[in-house]
Each structure stands twice: as structure tokens, then as C-alpha cells.
């Protein structure tokens, strides 16, 4: 099978991942040194931390992104007062594994935070993220309102917005969103995760969600994005609550291009990237590419 044919099949049956084993290219770790645009790792029944490690090593290892002495921000979704199995927040094991890899790559400091929707104390605790990463030495802090700075964005819709200072002061930023349903945006994944560093009345960006999120990504440029689809929330998002709406995929998608990742993420829900307003806007503004058929994707079975 040549690559073109393979990719075509993959695009058509993108949601084949839901079925699990169906799609796997059988790339051995030795081939991973080759640079891919996306890594899609699947490990049915495997611990999330193992899938994370395999994903990162397939994308080139954490050393590709984090240098010795770096201050790294790892930004999960900790927005909701929900338990890990409810899939409203990023999987704590994934976040912990990434934090650990950052330290192993020589990071001086790893910061983890999110501007939550429910009470921050409950979100940090109940999501399991605070406990999982603070024991590794990461600095887990609640949002300090004084640390928002008006950042000039010069986007189509947003000209400037108060954004969290730590994102811009860090040497490296790693986006670790969770893939889930959303009433307006349809899905929330990597690009929408940056609402967690917005200050002020961020709810008003829903008036023009697609352009606003793309505008945000003009100034927030993570070195690496790891989309958590260990469990995905398929309905009643973004906070869910009912385990019936949670689907276990044991999948992670990693890459640098957030638009591509969200575009690929859409296929997990049986959608296309072009179904999502912010993916389309991001593509149009040249922030990334939503055409996953043109990407080099490493499909990996852990």
C-alpha cells in the first residue's frame, strides 16, 4: 500500500479508531525517529501513562521540545468539578506522565494551572490532577487574578485580551486538552483549551467562537500539543456527568499544529475538521492545517 492510498483510507475511516485495532500502521519504534506531523497512539486497555510515554517518544521524545533549564507550562483542562472517569477534565495520568517527561528532559520548573469554571479548589482536587502532579514536583497553582496582562492580539475579532502572564513568561508551553462535546463549538479540544488562560468576561467570545479562538492562537503558540482521548465525552459537554456519555478510546494525539490536532480530533467523534468553526478559521488564517490527508501521521499501537 503506498502512502497516498493509506492516507486516503485513513481519512475515510478516521473514526475507525473508535473500533480500536482496525487502524494501525505497525510502525516500530525505530522508525519513530522520522519526523511526523501527528502521532496517533492507541493502546487498548493500556495504562494512560504508558500510552503517553509511547506517544511522546514517537513524536521525537520530550527533548525535542524541552531543553535543560526550561520553565515549562503544562496546560491541561481542569475546568470542571468532575472525576477523572467523567472525562470532563484532562486525564490526570496523562498530565502526570507529561510532567514527568518534562523533568526528565531537564525542565527546571513545570507549572500546571487552569482558570476553572467550577470552584478551583474542587476542580483541582476532584480532577485528580493536583494530586497527580504536585507529588512529581510540579508547581500547581490557582489562578492569581493579578497575573493577567492585556496582550495585543490584532486578530479578526479580538484586538487585545487579558491573558495569563505565565504562558508568555515560560520557555515552553505544552497544551494538554481533553477531547469532548460542546454545545456551541460542537467539540472542545486543543484550541478551545486556551480559554483557560483568558481573564475577564471570557464567556462573551462565544458570540464569535470560531474567529475568537483562532485569534487567541495567533499569540499562544505551544511547542507541543497532546490531545487526551483516553476517554472522550460524547454528549452533555463540556462537563458531562453521566458515564453513559463517556467513551473509552485509549488514544492520544500529539503534534505541534493545534489546528491539525483538532481537525484529527473531530474524526474521533465522526466529524470532520471543517465541521468546526474554529478549525476552519485557524486554517484560513494560516495558523495550521486542517487538511489531515496532507499530513504525515504516525499511527501507533502501544
Amino acid at each position, binding site marked *: 500500500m503506498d502512502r497516498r492510498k493509506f492516507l486516503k483510507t485513513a481519512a475515510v475511516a478516521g473514526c475507525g479508531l473508535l473500533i480500536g485495532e482496525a487502524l494501525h500502521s505497525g510502525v516500530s519504534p525505530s522508525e519513530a525517529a522520522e519526523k511526523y506531523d501527528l502521532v496517533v497512539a492507541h493502546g487498548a486497555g493500556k495504562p494512560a501513562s504508558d500510552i503517553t510515554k509511547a506517544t511522546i517518544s514517537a513524536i521525537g521524545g520530550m527533548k525535542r521540545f524541552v531543553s535543560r533549564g526550561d520553565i515549562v507550562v503544562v496546560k491541561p483542562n481542569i475546568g470542571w468539578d468532575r472525576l477523572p472517569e467523567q472525562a470532563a477534565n484532562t486525564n490526570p495520568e496523562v498530565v502526570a506522565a507529561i510532567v514527568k517527561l518534562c523533568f526528565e528532559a531537564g525542565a527546571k520548573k513545570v507549572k500546571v494551572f487552569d482558570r476553572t469554571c467550577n470552584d478551583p479548589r474542587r476542580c483541582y482536587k476532584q480532577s485528580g490532577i493536583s494530586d497527580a502532579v504536585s507529588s512529581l514536583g510540579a508547581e500547581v497553582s490557582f489562578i492569581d487574578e493579578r497575573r493577567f496582562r492585556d496582550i495585543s492580539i490584532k486578530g479578526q475579532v479580538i484586538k487585545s485580551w487579558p491573558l495569563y502572564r505565565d504562558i508568555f513568561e515560560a520557555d515552553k508551553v505544552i497544551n494538554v486538552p481533553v477531547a469532548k462535546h460542546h*454545545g456551541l463549538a460542537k467539540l472542545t479540544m486543543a484550541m478551545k483549551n486556551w480559554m483557560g488562560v483568558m481573564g475577564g468576561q471570557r464567556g462573551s467570545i462565544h458570540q464569535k467562537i470560531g474567529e475568537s479562538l483562532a485569534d487567541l492562537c495567533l499569540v499562544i503558540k505551544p511547542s507541543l500539543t497532546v490531545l487526551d482521548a483516553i476517554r472522550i465525552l460524547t454528549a452533555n459537554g463540556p462537563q458531562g456527568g453521566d458515564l453513559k456519555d463517556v467513551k473509552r478510546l485509549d488514544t492520544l494525539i500529539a503534534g505541534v499544529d493545534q489546528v491539525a490536532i483538532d481537525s484529527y480530533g473531530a474524526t474521533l467523534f465522526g466529524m470532520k475538521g471543517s465541521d468546526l468553526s474554529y478549525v476552519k478559521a485557524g486554517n484560513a488564517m494560516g495558523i495550521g492545517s486542517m487538511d489531515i490527508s496532507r499530513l504525515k501521521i504516525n499511527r501507533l499501537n502501544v
Partner: protein
Amino acid sequence: MSKQILRKISQGLFLLLFLFLFIRTESKGNDTLGYPVRLFLDFDPLIFLTTLFASRGGQIPAGFFLSLITILVTIVLGRVFCGWLCPLGTLNTIVGSFRRRQSIPLDAKWHRLKYYILIVLIVSSVFTLQIAGIMDPLSLIIRSFSVSIYPLADNGIRALFDTIYNTNISGLVDVSEAVYGLLKKSLLAFRPLFYLQAVFTGVIFFLILAMNLIENRFWCKYLCPLGALLGLCSRYSVLKRETSEGCTGCGICAKACQGGAISEKNDNWRNTECLACFSCDDSCPQNAVSFGLGKQKNQAMDLGRRQVMASMLSGALAVPLLRSTPLSKTTYSNPDLLRPPGALEEKEFLKRCVKCGECMKVCITNGLQPTLLEAGLEGIWSPRLIPRIGHCEYRCTLCGQVCPAGAIRRMPLEEKTKVIIGLAMIDKGRCLPYAHAIPCIVCEEMCPTSPKAIWFEETVVRRRDGKELIVQQPRIDLNLCIGCGICEAKCPVGNRAAIYVTNIGESRSQANQLLL
């Protein structure tokens, strides 16, 4: 070590314990607090008795039976609770120590005032009116600290550190931020606190403290109903004060006496007013005072039959008077009076709530606020949820855990998430997708129930330029809404939300229902 020093150490320790439990009445993100934060109230026999009477044999929280220990100790040793334990008493003595000149005490008959207050509270509770919490010292100090003193201190300290932070002097800011960080982890509230009635309750509290400048322990001597109750219990206590023949009647002990129990010439000692502070023992120049287990008869406080009758009558009349408000009608309620989840039916709730403010202190969003007259004078300082200040957090059950009197039931999470405190309604004149053809979904996004009580109807709307647009207009499923108010709290329509909760449909009421 003199007994006075021991007493001061005890006062200090109990004050610290009180403050520790008070500060710990705050969520750390877990489902429970891990500390018995209402401990002081559990040991309060005035709250126990009035709850017992007012609730007419309803279920009494088990913790309250600890207050029997207070009664027993008082029967044996006298008012040691007042002298050695009470945090309000301790604060009174601390402020009193700043008084420079010796004060002239009020006439001894003023001591009776607190007994009359006690009679009013007890008698009204027998007629099911629970207003003891207004003057009970522990309720009063917890409430004052919760809605006034602690927010005052917290906001003041924050303002100080923010000012330093904004100077941008690098070395200074580093140090101040380190200290600030430590304070945030220990003494400060998780976030700045704001309460209605903060000024009102604060002024009352400061007045009570300021009265010590007129006379030390003014509150304890003349006003405190718990002191009066314990005074009655100590009537037969066996700890007796004796003076030997060396007494010259110099009156130094009378001036030192914290409870005003000794007459000027030391020819009369009233057991019921003695706080067992041992100031007389320590101050006597002749060393003529001693305390021991004595047999001589205690002197009863003569309250006067007429005055007692008048107090009882006042207590009885207060009940129909305070209830002569339309709020007493089952068919009428203040629509904005959202009670915390698990609150008993309003009448039962008012018979229980002791206005201690523990629920408001622990409320994770600061949304529980003290009422003024929204629930009638009977319900003054009782808790009310104001979603625009803070919603009821879906998975939080803390208010029910800290309520000392069972006015808010303690419930497991599953049960709590089903309790309806009201229903949300949409103001279509303000809601963006309805009134202005602008997309907005924040209420739906925030709605915590599963499935969500807020759903969308996709509607074609026409803009001014004639263009048609499909917007998602939020609708509320009244069978799913629990009135938590997060939609109202987070509605981006600034000053007045386009979605709001009123108490119609609240689970606790049979009358205040909407659906068939």
C-alpha cells in the same frame, strides 16, 4: 502558678482553637472538611435548649447533647465556661484590659437584665420561635466573624500586599509575595469575601467589644443570655468562695471581679455571677480569699416576680408579633429567598436556624448571604443564596455538614444533586440569542445536570440588514432544573443576568410549586 495565669492560658488556648476551627471552615476541594468546625456550638446549652423547645421533639442533632457536659460542669464548678472558655468572653477581657481608668459599675440590679433576655428567648422558643441565635454569644461571634470581621481582616491584608505588589520594587515584592503566599495557604480566605450585612453585624460586634471600655465584660455581666443560663445552673454549684477573718473589706477584690459578683465591701458574693476567674483570690492584699468545696447556701438572684412575668409575656407575645407578616402565609413567599439545598420547609427551617453563619462561612462560592428582613424579622441573618454573587456548587455538600442545628440537612451527594432550590427562567428581553440574534450558550455550557436542564432550540432569526441567521436559543427543562443558579452567576449579560432563579418549585415546599 496562680490560678489566674492558668485561666488566661486556658482562655488563650480556647480562643486559638476557636479561630483554628473557624479558619478551617473552608473547602480544600475535598467533599468533607475533616475538622469538627461547629464544635463550640455543639457545647452550647442555650442553643440546645431553644432548639429542643422550638422544634417540638423533632430530631435533635446528636452533637448537641455535648452541651449537657457544659451544664454538668457548670452545676459542679459554676460559670467556668464564661471565665475560662468562651471566645467572646476572652475577647471582651482583652478589650477590657485597654480601659485605663477604673470604671464605676452599674447598679447590681442591672445583672438581672440578662436573665430577662434569657426568659424571653426560652419562652419564645417554647412557642416555637427560635431567636436565641441573635444573642447567643457563640452564634453571635461565629456570625460576626464569618460575615464581617474575617472579611474585614482578609480584605485589609490583601489590599496591603496588593499595594506592595504594585510598587514593582523587585526585592520588596519578592519578600512580600513569599509572605503573602504563606498567608494565603494558612490564614487568608481562598478568595476575597463579600457579605451583605457585613457593616451591620460588624458595627454590632464592635459595639459589644467597645462596651468593655465602659465596663469590663459589660456584655457578660448584663446582656449575655448564655451567661444567664449558666448562672442559673451554677446556683447550686459546690465551688464556693470564702473569705477568712483577715478580710479588711478594702474592696480591691470587688474592683478586680470580672463578673461583678462581689459587692463593694465584700460582704456579699453572688455565685450566679461568679465567672471563676480567680481575680479576687489573686488580688487580695491580705490573701484572705480562697475557693473550695463549701456547703453554705448560695444566694439566689432575686429577679422580681413582676419582671419575670413581664419577660415571659414578652417572649410569648413576640411569637405572634414576629409572625404577623405575609411571609407566614403558605401561599406567599419572597421569590428571591433561595434557601440552601437541604434546608427544611421554611417554618421548620426558621425553628432551627440559629443564625450562626457557619453555612455562609463555608459556602464555596460566597453565594450564601445573610438576610436582613427578606425572611421576616424572625429570619434575620439566616442564609439565602444569591446566585449573582455565587451559585450553589453542584457537587458541594458543605453547608449541610456544618449546620449545627439541622436547619440544613446533611445529605449524601446523590441526594443533594436532586434537591431543587428553585427554578431558572429566561428574560427574553435581555438574552442575547432571543433579543439580539447574537450567539451565546454560556448558561447551557455551565448547566451541571446530566442531561442538562438547559437545551437549545435552533431558531431562524432575521437581523436588521435582512440576513437570516440560525441561533441556538436556550430553553429550560423544568423537570431537570434544580435552581443551582450557575447559569445566573455566569450569564455574560453583565449587571442583570438574562437568566435568573426564583424559589418556585423548591423541593422543601408543598405550596410553592409550579408543575402539576
